[in-house]
């Protein structure tokens, strides 16, 4: 597909309650502008995001999935973010192997005080997904 001017990617975002969700909230109250392409889902920990949720979103037509967790050492549950990183690494390998591509799934550490980083991440992700074009699974009746 390549770049497409009228294509607005849909991003499902699984955001950790303690850090990234609060960071997104800070971006809002700080009136930082960022594209309205994300559909946030608050989760208690990035470590609770089973790859199945991400796959479900992608196969149902999300163009990208963002998982946001606490910085290393900051996890409210001690090490959920480290475990998420391992699961996401496995998921990425599988996405690459079967033609979805790891670029559609982003895992980022964004703290509660990093509203600006959250906004910047969303901007970057939207730009990347516009380059990638729509997720082919969206209109694939077999998936």
């Amino acid at each position, binding site marked *: 597909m390549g770049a497409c001017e009228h294509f607005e990617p849909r991003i499902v975002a699984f955001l950790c309650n303690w850090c990234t969700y609060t960071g997104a909230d800070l971006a809002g109250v700080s009136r930082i502008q960022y594209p309205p392409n994300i559909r946030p889902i608050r989760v208690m920990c990035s470590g609770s995001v089973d790859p*199945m949720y991400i796959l479900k979103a992608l196969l149902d037509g999300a163009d990208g999935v963002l998982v946001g967790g606490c910085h290393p050492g900051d996890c409210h549950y001690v090490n959920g973010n480290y475990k998420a990183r391992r699961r996401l690494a496995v998921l990425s390998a599988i996405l690459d192997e079967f033609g979805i591509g790891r670029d559609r799934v982003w895992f980022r550490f964004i703290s509660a005080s990093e509203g600006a980083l959250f906004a910047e991440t969303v901007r970057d992700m939207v730009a990347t997904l516009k380059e990638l074009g729509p997720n082919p699974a969206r209109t694939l009746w077999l998936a």
Partner: protein
Amino acid sequence: MKDLLVTVGQDGRTQALREFLAKLLEVGAADALLVPAEAAPGTITHVLARDVGLVMRAAEPLAPVMPVNAASVVSEVVRKGPRGRVAALLRPCEMRALVELVKLKQAAPENILAIGIDCLGTCDPVAYREASGRRDDLPVREACRVCLNPTPSEAALPGITLGFIGLDSTDGIVASLSDGLDQGLAAVIEKLGLTEGEAAQRKRKEAVQALMQERRASYDAFIKNAESAVSSSGIEAFARELAGCTGCHNCRVACPLCYCRECIFDTDTFEYETGQFLRRSGRKGGLKVPQDTVLYHLTRMNHMSLSCVGCGSCEAACPVHLPLFRLFAMASRRTQAVFGYPPGRSVDDELPFTTFREEELEPR
């Protein structure tokens, strides 16, 4: 590691192995022996044998079929106490699956006497039954043709390794006792009247090396072929490979490593309302039903491919013969490479999902 020799008499290897296994039972090396047995001509099942006579009559330690991956059966038998030692005759892929199950706390290693045995491949159990066990001309399964582990990993679980690759009947069968084997048990086994097996072991190891070169070449060609068919063509090609899936989930049942006691795909999560079906099919223009085929297989890959031992039980269990071994081999090769994790090598290797390092992967 101590190499002994099981001599093979006029009645052949099967009989020699039956005698060896029966002796293990007789001298109390184990309370029971789990071994493949012939139930009817060509029908092989596992039996948890306690009667020496049954072992001598029915045990088929060399039958070239794997009715189920024995790791699943062993796990079922030794998951809960009270204690008793079960000797289990295991192919290399069964041994490796059992090591993974031990790490997943679904088998108690103290209850197992693992007897690994060389494996040159198995054929389709249905074809074997239809041929009434005449084994010579049956094709070996794809999973076995490209198997990179024809010999059991000797350090996997304390026990015995039976080796015959490269040996003919006059050479006998090598029985090596692993270093971790209980001293008392080792002493009992050494008194079974076995002879010295070092020379035969050397011969076997040379043959194994040559075999591994062939296998490596077959595996590389297989992966190259598989990837050119699927990886480069996007998700649609992958979905087409799986399009015949009936949603029976037999692959999951047959998989020794799909370890959840209750699978999420059997829960209410996947009981959709009519409106959800209609919304999804509206968005896509149509919807394959039974639905969630791709989600199911990709999720299984995410959950268990790190531990996948490539036994091909999933494909053997598939009623519509989907190329599951091929797809899971592609996935597990990639995921295992992420952590350099060799499933089934040793109970001391950490399961990647149960641990982490602070400095690794991305993001940091």
